[in-house]
């Protein structure tokens, strides 16, 4: 499990509008990479292009290449459905399926590919995934209860369990803690640290302390002004980005002078 991602000359458009311009970035396997930057700079948009989820938005399209261990996600014969099976995603607001039990939520993705699964295999996978998401002890006695009855932080960890249950290569997280309280945020951050042992994790965050705490590398995105495309300004080791950034804009942003 876990593959690297290399992005080459990627432009993202919403219909005619160029939203993100010319991104080149290499993301190592088994590492945590944080995308930071002011609102509207295209970091979430760019994140979505890494598993083709931007295609859900009408009119969104890309130019360029995204290579997953050398295989282009945008090659002609590639089905976005296959891509998303390998590159999981966790969203800003926790979104467990309200009509499913906790157990069914965890197994939702697995059941897509593998319709028949014995009950004991299912039980094992549920336990393994929930343990992997640090949620097992809190929910093991109520796996048949609806997932929507959990707290926000627990729901988000349930979503992470659901994502890792399909053994993806990469997990993308789009501001996974922005709807959570500090305690739940801490639980997710601890979890991210554990996840990088097995997965490539890419996280978008508005919280610079969070980026500093959880990531190995940080990419700073910025936008020149409204209506201008977002750009990758600087990418490097997190300690470098936060302590000795090469670009003035990065320094201004991480020191809290704007954004």
């Amino acid at each position: 499990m876990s593959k690297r991602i290399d992005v080459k000359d990627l432009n993202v458009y919403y219909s005619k509008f160029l939203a993100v311009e010319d991104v080149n970035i290499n993301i190592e396997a088994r590492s945590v990479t944080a995308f930071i930057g002011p609102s509207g700079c295209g970091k979430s948009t760019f994140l979505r292009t890494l598993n083709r989820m931007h295609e859900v938005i009408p009119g969104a399209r890309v130019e360029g290449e995204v290579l997953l261990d050398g295989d282009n996600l945008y090659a002609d014969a590639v089905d976005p459905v296959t891509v998303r099976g390998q590159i999981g995603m966790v969203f800003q607001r926790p979104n467990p399926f309200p009509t499913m039990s906790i157990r069914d939520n965890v197994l939702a993705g697995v059941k897509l590919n593998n319709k028949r699964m014995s009950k004991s295999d299912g039980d094992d996978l549920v336990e393994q995934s929930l343990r992997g998401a640090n949620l097992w002890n809190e929910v093991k006695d109520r796996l048949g209860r609806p997932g929507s009855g959990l707290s926000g932080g627990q729901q988000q960890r349930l979503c992470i369990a659901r994502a890792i249950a399909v053994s993806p290569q990469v997990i993308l997280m789009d501001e996974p803690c922005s709807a959570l309280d500090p305690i739940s945020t801490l639980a997710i951050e601890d979890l991210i640290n554990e996840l990088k042992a097995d997965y490539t994790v890419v996280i978008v965050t508005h919280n610079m302390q969070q980026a500093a705490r959880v990531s190995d590398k940080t990419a700073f995105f910025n936008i020149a002004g409204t209506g201008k495309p977002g750009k990758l300004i600087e990418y490097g080791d997190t300690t470098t980005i936060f302590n000795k950034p090469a670009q003035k804009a990065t320094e201004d942003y991480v020191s809290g002078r704007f954004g």
Partner: protein
Amino acid sequence: MSTNSLKASTNSLQASSTDRGRAGDKIFSGISLAAGILILAVLFSVAVFLLVQAAPIFTADPTEVTGGNGFAPYILPIVIGTVVAAAIALLIATPIGIAVALFISHYAPRRLARAFGYVVDLLAAIPSVIYGAWGYIILAPQLARVYTWLAENLGWIPIFAGPASQTGKTILTAGIVLAVMVIPIITSLSREIFLQTPNLHEEAALAMGATRWEMVRMAVLPFARPGIISATMLGLGRALGETMAVALVLSPGALVGSLVKSGNQTIAAEIALNFPEAFGLRLNELIAAGLVLFVITLVVNMIARFIITRHKEFSGAN
């Protein structure tokens, strides 16, 4: 801020709140209360009317009731006819309605979806007499041939037993016409519900590698379940109560098990056809039939409510 000044400011707020704003609240709550009471009052008066007017039939001499055997043997066949026609209608209309609604909400290109939506809404607004006339003139003669074929080849199945009606005016035709009338209702309502599926959950399904159909099955249909049931119930209401269309496409008669023979009758059509000439006990009899229809509708709706609340925990409402 000291307690004193807080109190003072509260007082000044009280003094400065205008009477007009408060009056607006009162008027509005009064109007909505009145509307609520009015609807209950109307329902109550209908129920009382039905009970009072129907009462004589239950104490009447059985020989005086149509058919000469009392009310139950009179009403039972047309209750069955009503339920069978409505069931046929729902059996056909529910899957088609849901499929069309899904096409509009999740599959069709946006511009086509909008045009399509308008057309469906328009279909719901066509008066039932038009559907009845279409069923009578166009549909029934075509179906007559199908019925003949069914009776000849599948006649060993009791519901297709011959001889088939030559005019095609059977309970099956009535059910099909009702289905056509109910489809726009189910489609319209289901579409609105499907469109309200939280984006959040659709994206959750897609992001784990679901195809569009898998996403629909995972996120859209479970979310819309109570809505689909409600839509079906409204459709059923129309199917049960429809008078004109049934009166036009069904040549009524005694209860028969075969769907392709002429015969059978529904309560609504029975009332409509006989009401103008009815007087005395016959009038009470027809109103009692209406009461029975009322009860059927009530029971069906209660069952639907029960099904919806049984799954409340998993509805996502919490």
